[in-house]
């Protein structure tokens, strides 16, 4: 299945981009990136391009090298091999110039709890050598955008997790970076904080900022990203726009539960029977959701009826069944064989 998508993504990549992005300008080039830690291949072979002005999503299970890839790009990790460029500037040869253009907000917040939010922002704007007048202007602006004005003069140690995440992002925006690199910016946030992040990401996108973002919330990436790359064990296994990726895996999705918690043996047996149906392309067993079955089926209208009558003939109950167009989650499941069980509500 992943091979089919790999073939497809080469085709997608050659296509001119949609959404009015000038595809001739490439913001980020990562080519054959490799990074080992001792015996661990953190990044085995990653190649991707991010076009200027697009939102690019980096997806993948835990420990597949997303953060390491971003670290290499952001001059924090020395890559073993590979080409890294930001607007044509080599990351390894000219890190200072790259840093000037990047804003990097790491997966873990990097704050000093003994400072107030404003003091921290002042420090960072000094590290970016902003003048006093620029500082006042920029600090006010990022505080407003992230809805932090009322917390600005409180100690960071008293901030909640969401506020910390927002302040961390605010610090990354101070110097108006051309490229913003966000490593799981919405992990663990409540709806309100997440919405603030989304609005901001969209605003920055509107104003032409290139955004590279990782997330475990696939619906979020589906809604935000122009293009995505899915990583698995240090390699890119799928790349393209969410729409193209969804189209490429083909068919409709059916999720089926024989019982609320189906015994594994029964689920396996049903799987064998369903695979015999012509309309059913594949059946994946999802152990994380009470051994439910995820089917890829022909986009044919009576497929649900066929499945139901099959179960009837086997004398089995049907706890629930639903049918949908493929989602990014289905793409993810298809190419990684893993299911992200972090639904977005």
């Amino acid at each position, binding site marked *: 299945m992943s091979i089919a998508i790999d073939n497809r993504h080469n085709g997608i990549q050659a296509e001119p981009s949609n959404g009015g992005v000038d595809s001739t300008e490439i913001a980020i080039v990562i080519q054959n990136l490799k990074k080992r830690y001792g015996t661990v291949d953190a990044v085995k072979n990653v190649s991707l391009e991010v076009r200027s002005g697009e939102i690019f999503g980096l997806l993948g299970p835990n420990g597949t090298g997303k953060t390491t890839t971003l670290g290499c790009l952001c001059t924090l990790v020395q890559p073993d091999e590979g080409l890294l460029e930001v607007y044509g500037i080599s990351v390894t040869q000219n890190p200072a110039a790259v840093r000037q253009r990047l804003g990097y907000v790491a997966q873990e917040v990097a704050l000093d709890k*003994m400072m107030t939010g404003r003091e921290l922002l*002042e*420090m960072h704007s000094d590290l970016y050598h902003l003048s006093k007048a620029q500082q006042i202007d920029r600090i006010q602006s990022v505080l407003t955008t992230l809805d932090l004005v009322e917390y600005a003069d409180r100690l960071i140690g008293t901030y909640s997790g969401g506020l910390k995440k927002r302040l961390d992002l605010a610090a990354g925006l101070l110097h108006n970076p051309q490229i913003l690199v966000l490593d799981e910016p919405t992990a663990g946030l409540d709806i309100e904080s997440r919405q603030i992040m989304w609005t901001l990401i969209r605003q920055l996108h509107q104003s032409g900022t290139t955004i590279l973002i990782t997330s475990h919330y696939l619906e979020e990436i589906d809604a935000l990203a122009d293009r995505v790359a899915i990583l698995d064990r240090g390699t890119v296994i799928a790349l393209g726009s969410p729409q193209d990726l969804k189209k490429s895996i083909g068919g409709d999705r059916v999720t089926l539960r024989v019982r609320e918690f189906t015994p594994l043996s029964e689920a396996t047996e049903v799987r064998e029977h369903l695979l015999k149906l012509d309309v059913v392309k594949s059946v994946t067993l999802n152990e994380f959701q009470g051994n439910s079955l995820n089917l890829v089926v022909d986009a044919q209208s009576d497929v649900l009826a066929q499945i139901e009558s099959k179960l009837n003939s086997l004398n089995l109950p049907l706890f629930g069944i639903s049918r949908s167009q493929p989602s990014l989650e289905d793409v993810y499941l298809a190419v990684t064989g893993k299911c992200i069980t972090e639904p977005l509500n």
Partner: protein
Amino acid sequence: MTQIISPTPSASSAQFDYPDLSLSIRILHFIQETRALTKRLFIQLIRRPSTLIAGLVQPLMWLVLFGALFQNAPDGFMGTSGQYQKFLGAGVIVFTAFGGALNAGLPVMFDREFGFLNRLLMAPLASRSSIVVASAIFIMSLSLLQTLVIVGTIAILGAGLPNVLGILLIMAIVMVLVLAVTSLSLALAFSLKGHVELIAVILVTNLPLLFASTALAPISFMPTWLQWIALLNPLSYAIEPIRYIYQHPDWNLNAIAIVAPWGSVSLIGCLGLLSAFAAISFYSIQPLLKRSLG
């Protein structure tokens, strides 16, 4: 993939490189970032004054308790007449400064562990040595403050107060020692695995270096093997000149402060040796800092 526009690195790099900015702007940037980083360390100190208070109370307790311990010792017991504090003061000054400098790497290590350092490294700093310089400025200011408080306390305890030049020389000695030890501690903060390892190194260095110096007892009290160690211990070269200043109000720079088997060292000679120690440790950590900080 082959259609990627990738100008040769050499062509693209020269155009944007930091050195393009004029030297004076780079210096201004360096000052701006160093000031910001130093300010952060002082904010931490003021908001968490326990470190400061402990750093001031501890040497005072040394002075008072050790002074009391030897209160009834026969006059001239420590090779000098008068209170033990007069003898001990120099040791407390140096040991306090040494301890502070040894700990200089800890905040940096915590910044490393919490990802804060990475955030600093993402900024287009004029020079990443501003991170090291800020720590050094902070530790030096703290040591100077401690030194002044200890000198004041010794005076209050009635064990004498050197003249202004004497105090200045004491501060110079403290500064040089602190610079040397801070360099080593910061180097450890960048090279050791984590704070547990750093604390372990601090613990096994701190007290042994104290006991193997002339801080608590004069060299003549020691067995020969310990004399050798004490005379190789840089701390002794800070302690002895300060002690000399306390014990000889009519001191001068050429007066002999240390008599070692290989020769005698004057006050100014001690300062010279300490400066050499500081220069060596400062320069020997540069390759390491360059490797860790790029």
